[in-house]
């Protein structure tokens, strides 16, 4: 996405550039492009939808930051915030983590993001229903000894 955004903004820098990506395309396979996007301070809003679900059975997330407290009470420490740290190491941008369900906060941040010049990284934690279903089913299968 950063490459396409750069070309689009160069073609017409008067438009509002807004892109949505996942944590994998941002902090795993896409980390190289993401870092250079921040370094250049490309005027765009970069929304990262981070899937939040329990990863105690092995992380499949690109940035397994949001490890959740398991149902059995075990508390797991989050892994490093790779993309947030990247903001600090290579760029001086606007970084906002928030939960999708906090609509009041999300709306305020989107408004401010549009007003900001330069790269805005909105880190939106998004509870993923379909991933939840898969994990619940898989856990049930494991517990049933199948």
């Amino acid at each position, binding site marked *: 996405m950063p490459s396409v955004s*750069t070309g689009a*903004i*160069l*073609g*017409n*820098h*008067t*438009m509002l550039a807004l892109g949505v990506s996942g944590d994998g395309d941002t902090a795993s396979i896409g980390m190289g492009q993401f870092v250079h996007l921040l370094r250049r*301070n*490309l*005027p765009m809003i970069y929304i990262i939808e981070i899937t*939040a*679900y*329990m990863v105690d059975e092995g992380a*499949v997330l690109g940035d397994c*930051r*949001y490890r*959740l*407290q*398991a*149902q059995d009470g075990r*508390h*797991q*420490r*989050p892994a*490093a*915030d790779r993309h*947030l740290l990247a*903001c*600090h190491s290579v*760029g*001086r*941008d*606007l*970084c*906002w*983590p*928030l*939960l*999708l*369900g*906090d*609509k*009041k*906060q999300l709306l305020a*941040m989107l408004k*401010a993001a549009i007003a*900001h*010049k*330069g*790269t805005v990284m909105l880190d939106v*934690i998004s*509870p993923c*229903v*379909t*991933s*939840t*279903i*898969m994990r619940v089913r*898989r856990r049930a299968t494991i517990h049933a000894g199948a």
Partner: protein
Amino acid sequence: MQEHDEPINELGFVPSFEDIEVEYDHGTTLDVRMHDGSSLRLRKIREDYDPTNKISAVKTLMEAHEEGEVLTGVFYVDTQKPTFTDLLNLVDQPLSSLPESVIRPSKETLDKVMASLQ
């Protein structure tokens, strides 16, 4: 099928779940229950937090990491750094709308450039 070949996506019926909606004050934490029963501890950044201090931002982030919390709110901002388009000194009019006669140097201009490089 190989033992490690586990499907991570499935096409099929997806039951309905209620939206998770939260609202909490600055400087407070909130445990949010996810659809699978797990929870996520959020901490909304204090209102007096200075998001322009880079060192403080990293420290705050790492402290939250140690506590197992997820910070929410304006985390870091710098309004002084020039943007990519500022540095390129672009004309006001979008490049995509400029005619070819404007964006393409004439043959005489290109000849002059080539001559200067000889």
